[in-house]
Every structure is written in structure tokens, then in C-alpha cells.
């Protein structure tokens, strides 16, 4: 009897511990982000107040200033947003096409040194952005594509292709090869078989690879900060620096821009989270 009782007690204690730990974890994950969102709605005097003001007031000043454009000393957010969007979407589309073609090659063909090629491609992804940005800056300057959308798109395509290959390889490998064989017997060319059968089946997986690529481009800083100079090509991560002066930082404004950066990323990730995990694990585990 007593033993049953003690086991029951222990289970209750464990349950409480479990709940507390989980709660704390979630707090630590959420609070920094929420703090940013909260402060984007607080007036600067309140952010800077000493002693701190705990009951926040609400203002849209930072957003108003942000969207008012460069004319009034604000930051040209619209341009940054547009640049980010153009660069991320274009580079993602191209990276997906190229990566999908490569991933398909790895998933469907047998050839000598396949593993070597695969690891080799991945290693290019491992090259640190900072280390690449120095020489890339010089090369792009020589070619004359520094400070252009094209240059940044090119850089991001190269950066995203290896990982896209990893993901799409995993997704295509999940599709039995008999599927395209059946399609070929049904009268398709290999090209038709891919677009009519394999691509539709792998569609959701490809979409999540695309979102991964998009997020990488959307959030990238090390390369963008060197390859862009002007309002016409700077992306939002680089734009964040506009809120910093020599000794002061406009926290409220920066938080507002941060929110603008996070929201699209958040929405996209919501949509594909399930496939994302599947893609990562299949790519890795099902060797």
C-alpha cells in the first residue's frame, strides 16, 4: 500500500517539475521576441525611462516614422522591404529550380563518387559568409555587380543551392522510382514523367525547401552588408543598422522594422513546419 502511495507521490512531483520546466522553456523562447514586438509600440521616452515603466502605453509612432520614408529622417523601409522581397523571392525560385534538378540527380541516378559530390556541395555551404564576403566583394566589384539586386541574388542562389539539394534529394528519394517508370510506360517522356508525376507528389516537400531558402535569403546579413551600399539594393537586415548612430540606438524604430521582418517569416514557417521536419530527417536518415 505504502509503496503505491509513494509511487503516486513521486509521479505527482515529477509532473509538476515537468510542467514547470516546460513553462520556463517556453517563456525563455517567447519573451525576447515578444519584448521586441511590445517595444515597437512604446514611445521612446518610455523605453528609455529610468526607473523602468512597467505598464506600457501604446503608440504607432515608430511605425508611422518608419513608413514615412527617408524624407523626414526616417529609414526608407519601403525600399528595404521591396529589395528584400525581390532578392529573396527571385533567388529562392532560381535556387529551387537548380537545387531540385541537382537533388533529382542524387535521388534517381547512380554514379561514381556520388557521396563525394554530395559532401563536396555541402561543404560549399559551410563556407562562412564573412570569409566569402571579402573575396566576393572584390570579384563582384570587378565585374560591376556590386550594389545590385542581381549580384545579391546570384550570391544567395549559390548559398541556397546545396541545402536545397539536400532537402529535395530526401523528398524525391521517398517517392518510389516505379512511379516514374509507370509514367514512362504510360507514354511519358522522362521530362513529362517528372512534371506530371514526381513533381506533384513531392510538391509540399519542394515548397518547404523553398521556404527554407527564402528564410535564409530574407535573414542573411554578412554578405548583404558588404555587397549592398545604397537604398536601391540594401535589404532589411542591413537596414536595421540605419537605426544605430555612433553612440545611440533608436530602439523603438528598430523593433518596428524587426516586426516587419519577422511577420512574413513567421507566416511562411507556420504553413510548412510539418514538411520541413520531414524533409530534414528523410534527407539525412534514409541514406
Amino acid at each position, binding site marked *: 500500500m505504502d509503496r503505491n502511495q509513494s509511487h503516486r507521490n513521486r509521479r505527482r512531483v515529477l509532473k509538476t517539475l*515537468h510542467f514547470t*520546466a*516546460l513553462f520556463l*522553456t517556453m517563456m525563455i*523562447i517567447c*519573451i*525576447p521576441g515578444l519584448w*521586441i514586438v511590445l*517595444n515597437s509600440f512604446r514611445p521612446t521616452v518610455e523605453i*528609455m525611462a*529610468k*526607473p*523602468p515603466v*512597467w505598464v506600457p502605453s501604446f503608440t504607432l509612432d515608430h511605425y508611422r516614422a518608419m513608413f514615412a520614408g527617408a524624407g523626414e529622417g526616417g529609414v526608407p523601409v519601403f525600399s528595404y522591404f521591396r529589395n528584400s522581397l525581390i532578392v529573396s523571392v527571385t533567388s529562392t525560385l532560381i535556387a529551387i529550380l*537548380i537545387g531540385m*534538378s*541537382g537533388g533529382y*540527380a542524387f535521388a534517381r*541516378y547512380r554514379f561514381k563518387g556520388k*557521396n563525394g559530390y554530395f*559532401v563536396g*556541395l*555541402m*561543404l*560549399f*555551404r*559551410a*563556407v*562562412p*559568409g*564573412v*570569409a*566569402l564576403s*571579402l*573575396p566576393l566583394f*572584390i*570579384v563582384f566589384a570587378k565585374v560591376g555587380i556590386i550594389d545590385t539586386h542581381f549580384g545579391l541574388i*546570384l*550570391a544567395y542562389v*549559390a548559398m541556397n543551392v*546545396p541545402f536545397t539539394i539536400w532537402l529535395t534529394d530526401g523528398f524525391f528519394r521517398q517517392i518510389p522510382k516505379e512511379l516514374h517508370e509507370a509514367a514512362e510506360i504510360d507514354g511519358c517522356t522522362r521530362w513529362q514523367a517528372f512534371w506530371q508525376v514526381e513533381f506533384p507528389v513531392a510538391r509540399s516537400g519542394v515548397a518547404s525547401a523553398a521556404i527554407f531558402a527564402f528564410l535564409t535569403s530574407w*535573414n*542573411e*546579413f554578412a554578405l548583404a552588408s558588404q555587397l549592398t551600399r545604397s537604398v536601391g539594393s540594401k535589404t532589411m*537586415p542591413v537596414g536595421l543598422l540605419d537605426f544605430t548612430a555612433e553612440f545611440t540606438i533608436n*530602439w523603438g524604430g*528598430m*523593433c518596428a522594422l*524587426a516586426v516587419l*521582418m*519577422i511577420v512574413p*517569416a*513567421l507566416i511562411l*514557417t507556420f504553413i510548412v*513546419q510539418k514538411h520541413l521536419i520531414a524533409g*530534414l*530527417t528523410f534527407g*539525412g*536518415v534514409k*541514406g
Partner: protein
Amino acid sequence: MTRRRLPEWFVLLLPAIIVIAAVVLIPLLFSLYSSFTPYKLTRPSTLWKWVGTYNYEKILSDAKFWAAFGRTVLFLTIVLNLELLFGLGIALMMNKVTWGQRTLRTILMFPMMFSPILVGFQFKFIFNDNIGLVNNVLQSMGFNVALPWLVDAKLAMFSIMFAEIWMSTSVFAILILAGLFAMPRDPLEAAKVDGCTPWQSFRHITLPFLMPFIYIAMTIRSLDVARAYDIVQIMTGGGPARRTELLWTLMSRTGYVDARMGLANAMGYVSILLSILFTIYFFRKLSAARAELGMAG
């Protein structure tokens, strides 16, 4: 009769190879070359002066470089291990949750969406000694202190690691959780019946099964360990007095502030080598674990 053509797989891989060669390989070759010159951005003619391994000798005999190198390796070791540990813990906790698991999992993915530079600013804000959330909370609780989170060397290192871990633990947690979902139930139940304690069945059944997933996470992480650059650059810029200088910030300072490209590129090569070493190491571990799992069924 049959025409000699490029094999199809090669044609399919060609675009990838071309883009990567153009954007990564060529600049890297250029930087490899320039690392053997005293190249300075301000004096282009220096590009043609060959100095052999001078730059490498210079950095190898430079205490500042070695300090940054050692700190980087230490930083990565601590950070990766803690991320793994926390990730494992979070995944195990999440696996036990009976309701709202989807929501929790989505929340868990939040940090993955944040731009590293944003993470940098975010924690620069939160750890600000004057108006930061942390100090404000401490002061409101009655501690009359203003801890110099980003100014004191030790605290600054802690803050940076905190930011880095906050950003990247999700990758581990999510992938390990996926592993837990994929895990067959029977072995665990068999172990329970055989009288294993929870710790024993975790140690001998769950963990081995999770290994491939852990290595996938490690591999993915090792692909972009250098993201830490963004965070450090924003939070401390390598300061105070170079106490949080990592290989990447040192390189960027040498290249962009001092304009000594040749020297910076030499450092760049060391950092590339470091990244590649990490990646290859985990890739091999992954292949091995995969083979083992394959044998186990």
C-alpha cells in the same frame, strides 16, 4: 551507333556546379591567391606582389589571432554541446506533453525564423546595462545593481552564448523530437517489462535510436556555425578590448576596417577550414549512425 553525350545526372547537376563555381569557388580561389600577397584594398597594385606564406606566418605567430582562434573553438564546443543538451531535454519534455503539442512545437520553431542579426540586436537590447529588460527586472526586484552584461568580458561572453543558444537550440529540439516520433514503441515496452529503469531504457534504447537525428542536427548546425558572426558583431563587435573576439570578427575587422585583404583572407582560410572540419566530422558520424540504423532495421 549511340552518340557520346554527357550523362544525364551530370547535366542535372551542372547548373548547381556552375553557380557554386562562379559565386563560391572563383572568389575562394582568388582569396587563396590574395592570401599569398600583401593585398590592400587601398593600393590595388599590391595584389601582384607575391609574398609567399608571409601572411600565414604572420597570423600563426600572432597572439591575438590565436586568442581568437582558441576562443572560437571553445565557443563552438560549449555552444554546440549545450544546444544539444537543451535540445534533447526540450524534445523529451515535449514528447511527454499530452495536449497542445502542435502549438508548442510551433512556438519552438520561432527562433529559427529570426535573422541572426536581429537576434544580436534583440539581446543587445535586452542585456543593455541601462535600459535592458534583464537589468530592469533585477532592479525592480530590489537588487540595486546595473550589471554590465555587454561590457564585462565574462558577462559579455555569457550574453553572446545565451543569444546563440537561444537562436539554435530549436534545430536540435525539433529534429530530436522528430526522431522520438519516429521511434518504434515495442523496444521501449519490452524494456519496461524486462525491468529497465527509465534511465536505463533511455540510455540503451532511446539514445542509440536518436543518434542519427542528433547527427543530422549537428551537421545542419555545423553548416552555419559562422552565423555567430552576426550576433557577436552586433552585440559587442568583438569587444570589450577584444575579449569576445572570434575568428570571424577578427577577420572582418582586418579586412574591412584595416583594409588588409591579404591578411584577412589568410584568416578566412583558417575559418573555412574550421567550418569544413566540423561539417566533415559530423557528416561522417551521420553516415556511420545511418549505417548502424540501417542494420538495426
